[in-house]
């Protein structure tokens, strides 16, 4: 056990986490040069394209030090985004140390801080690593100062490296072995293993990634998942070497996988404890919680006959993503669909993109919503994440919406713009701190609903990319809410309804009406678009009708040219939905999601 090290790399997005992982893997000669590709742990197309990690990956790196001692270094690669913070926290709970990666030109960012706090919560050894020192704009001294002042870590303990060029890699291995303690634990005690991830394999079912804290698990054992008491017979255990490598057993201190005939990843819970049915641990490992979705949106097939195909796609998708929840939903405008819950906006986008790309679905998504709480006159409390189920306003005694604490790190010159943005988004109780000269940490309390649209994009644009942002949900607060309905030619398009703060209702209504006006193509009649609260119209726009749309000549028998033009237009029509007698393109539903016109 003393030759095992379990560690993770944490970093702000784009600080080079995946590149460093690549170098560490290459250094151990686990893959030959031919098979190697960049971002090797990010196996999904979407991860590689966006340069982000969505799914955790684990790899066991064999390493021999200068004295000839053979180590087993378990690198647990974690997603970087706040949407997946619970997954990250379970991965961290499986480690004894982390490499905290800081970009040598950008320095400490909001997620660096959030990651540091997460690592500190788990009492992990933190090794600061300053990456990208090869960049001409690298400013190692400034970054060291930030590590000292903002992170409170010893700047001299920082390792300098360039993952891109492969410099400093040896130092990193040295620090992992020298500074991170080997895992503790007793292989003879009852089994206690933490599930930190689960993947779906079409042939083997669920592959559970876990860290063994105590005890030993072998094929043939009957294991029990402590959160719900379900039992499974272990078929195979092993470790990860880019591919799975079966072994005789997993014992205390090790990180590896268990295959036990578990059908879908939804049958497992990240953070749950695995024990042996025959000799259970006295208590589960701490920190387990059910991950709850925070952002909700409905998904409809563009063509209503594709409902069944969408259902099958969601079922398949769900096999590998336990955090997506969905249930049947139906809309007068869009027919049969699904109400889905997501961990956050990035998660929503990932699901949308993967459904479209990997599962070939054409879908319409409705505006994302948070979960609101309404206290009715009967004192009943209802939670509503779907505007369709907004209670009768006459019976609402009080409304509440979820709030977050947002932390934003920016260069001082952008503070004014950031504060303005946060105030526009109903931010309150601002607090400014100056961790290092020239940099400001702005914290705000804000409604979650205000950031789920395009807050991050806006922040990036007003700070020219220098602003970084992180948040945590703090709880519910009373809020003055209403449902904004959108009417097209007098008919309510329920899929466009949103719950809004009354103060923001008019702005949103005007924006949505204008957006729809641009998106809805002219038709043979005038189309009135209205925003309404209750029966009261608060915004309107009009799409004028075609006055004339006919070419004078269909001449000389050239029918082909004209038909081809129609065929092109017809293709565009495929992405439209009829609402009443109006054709609304998919893009209109999308456009309505955006808040600002700029």
């Amino acid at each position: 056990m003393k030759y095992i090290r379990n560690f993770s790399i944490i970093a702000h997005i784009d600080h080079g986490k995946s590149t460093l992982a690549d170098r560490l893997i290459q250094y151990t000669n686990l893959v030959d040069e031919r098979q190697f590709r960049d971002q090797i742990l990010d196996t999904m197309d979407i991860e590689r394209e966006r340069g982000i990690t969505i799914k955790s990956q684990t790899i066991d790196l064999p390493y021999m030090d200068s004295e000839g001692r053979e180590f087993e270094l378990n690198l647990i690669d974690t997603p970087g985004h706040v949407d997946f913070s619970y997954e990250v926290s379970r991965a961290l709970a499986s480690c004894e140390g982390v490499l905290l990666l800081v970009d040598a030109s950008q320095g400490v960012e909001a997620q660096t801080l959030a990651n540091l706090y997460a690592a500190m919560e788990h009492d992990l050894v933190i090794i600061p690593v300053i990456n990208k020192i090869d960049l001409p704009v690298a400013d190692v001294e400034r970054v060291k100062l930030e590590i000292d002042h903002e992170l409170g870590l010893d700047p001299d303990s920082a390792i300098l490296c360039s993952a891109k060029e492969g410099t400093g890699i040896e130092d990193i291995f040295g620090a992992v072995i020298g500074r991170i303690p080997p895992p503790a634990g007793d292989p003879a005690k009852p089994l206690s293993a933490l599930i930190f991830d689960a993947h779906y394999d079409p042939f083997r079912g669920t592959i559970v990634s876990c860290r063994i804290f105590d005890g030993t698990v072998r094929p043939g054992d009957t294991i029990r998942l402590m959160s719900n008491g379900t039992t499974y017979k272990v078929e195979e255990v092993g470790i990860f070497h880019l591919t799975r490598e079966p072994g005789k057993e997993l014992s205390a201190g090790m990180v590896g996988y268990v295959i036990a005939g578990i059908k879908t990843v939804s049958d497992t819970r990240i953070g749950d404890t695995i024990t042996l049915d025959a000799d259970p641990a006295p208590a589960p490992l701490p920190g387990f919680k059910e991950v709850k979705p925070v952002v909700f949106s409905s998904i409809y097939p563009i063509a209503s006959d594709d409902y069944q195909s969408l259902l099958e796609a969601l079922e398949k998708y769900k096999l590998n993503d336990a955090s997506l929840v969905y249930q049947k939903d139906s809309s007068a405008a869009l027919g049969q669909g699904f109400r889905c819950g997501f961990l956050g906006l990035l998660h929503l986008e990932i699901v949308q993109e993967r459904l479209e790309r990997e599962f070939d679905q054409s879908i319409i998504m409705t505006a994302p919503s948070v979960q609101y709480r309404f206290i009715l006159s009967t004192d009943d409390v209802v939670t509503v994440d779907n505007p369709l189920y907004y209670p009768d306003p006459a019976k609402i005694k009080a409304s509440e919406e979820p709030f977050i604490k947002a932390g934003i790190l920016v260069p001082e010159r952008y503070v004014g713009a950031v504060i303005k943005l946060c105030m526009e988004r109903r931010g309150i109780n601002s607090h400014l701190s100056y961790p290092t000269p020239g940099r400001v940490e702005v914290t705000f309390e804000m409604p979650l609903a205000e950031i789920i649209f395009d807050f991050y994009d806006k922040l990036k644009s007003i700070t020219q990319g220098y602003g970084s942002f992180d948040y945590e949900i703090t709880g519910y607060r009373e809020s003055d809410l209403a449902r904004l309905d959108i009417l097209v030619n007098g008919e309510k398009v329920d899929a466009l309804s949103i719950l809004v703060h009354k103060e923001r209702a008019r702005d949103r209504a005007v924006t949505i009406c204008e957006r729809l006006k641009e998106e809805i193509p002219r038709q043979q009649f005038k189309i009135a678009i209205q925003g309404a609260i209750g029966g009261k119209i608060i915004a309107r726009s009009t799409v004028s009708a075609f006055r004339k749309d006919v070419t004078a000549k269909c001449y000389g028998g050239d029918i082909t040219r004209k038909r081809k033009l129609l065929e092109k237009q017809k293709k565009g029509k495929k992405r439209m939905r009829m609402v009443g007698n109006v054709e609304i393109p998919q893009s209109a539903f999308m456009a309505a999601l955006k808040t600002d016109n700029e």
Partner: protein
Amino acid sequence: MNKQEMNKEDLPGLYVHVPFCKTKCPYCDFCSITDTSLVASWLEGVEREVIAWGREGFSTFDTLYIGGGTPSLLGKGEFEQLMGILRNGFSFAPDAEVTVEVNPDDVTPSLLSCYMALGINRLSVGVQSLQEEELRFLQRRHTAARAQRAIELIRSSGFDNFGVDLMYGFQGQTKKSWADSLDRVLSWAPPHLSCYQLTLSEGTPFGRLASEGKLRRCTEEQGRRFFTYTSNFLQDHGFAHYEVSNFAKREGLFSRHNQKYWQRTPYLGIGPAAHSFRYNQRWWNTGSVGDYCRLLREGRLPVAGQERLSPEQERLERLMLGFRTGKGVDIDDIIGRSSGREVLGRLSSSGIVRIEGKRVSPTLYGYLIADRLPLIFLN
């Protein structure tokens, strides 16, 4: 419809493209050149092409339409030669409609008697406008007086069946000047009228001027007003508005040849850039007069492209063409699909189409948005 008429309907039409003009009109995007030295080799090409298609099973037609370009530019000898080639290679139904497009400037008693002698029984006269200023703007060769004279000659030569082409929706024209042109044309009591809104096509001098902002485009609303005025005015004077841009005194005077395009009856196009349709295939000739002549000399067909239509494409064509005509489309083509009947009900109650038995035809408003109608039914 009795059986004999059915058969007559099924006979294909023949189109011959004469790609020569004395001057090029700045709005025209049809295939035409001003170099008349190529007339002889074009005629040779036509002869070869006629023979080739004769071997491919085209034999009897009941319409012949000689268009251009400016067919009336051909000298009497050339025209006789052309008709000789056509009559040698093909046969025509005894009551075939035989149309020639003429420029008023070319109309003389001797040309007309030549046409008469060769069996031409219908003329299409490119008048375009009766306002001198407008004719100059459109760079037409003739004057209003010359147009008037041409019509008188046509009448006195015994051509009872003729059509007049007019154009609206261009810069400088007013509703008043258009009404005046229409009034004057009506005084000639033409059996047939075609009123086209000017299309500013890319690649024409007018198209270029318009894209440079030097020529005003007719707005949608102006177009609508011209169109509506024209239709109402002509219908008040006893014309049937039987196609988006075409009017005739009675059904017997509808252009039989043009109807083949809209009704998807087979037709063969001879000459550069001519289009053809038979069974479920469409093909078209090269638009280059030089290539046309050369290919035929080399013993090859001058076909530049072709396509075979899928049933879906055929349906789209039936809708697209049908909604351009008073005959409309067959109701089965519309309501075969899921929401067709409901959409149809809405269109009919909002006065866009009318339903008579199995036919769904556009109203005046339907004509105005005829390009939209197929799309509305293509859900």
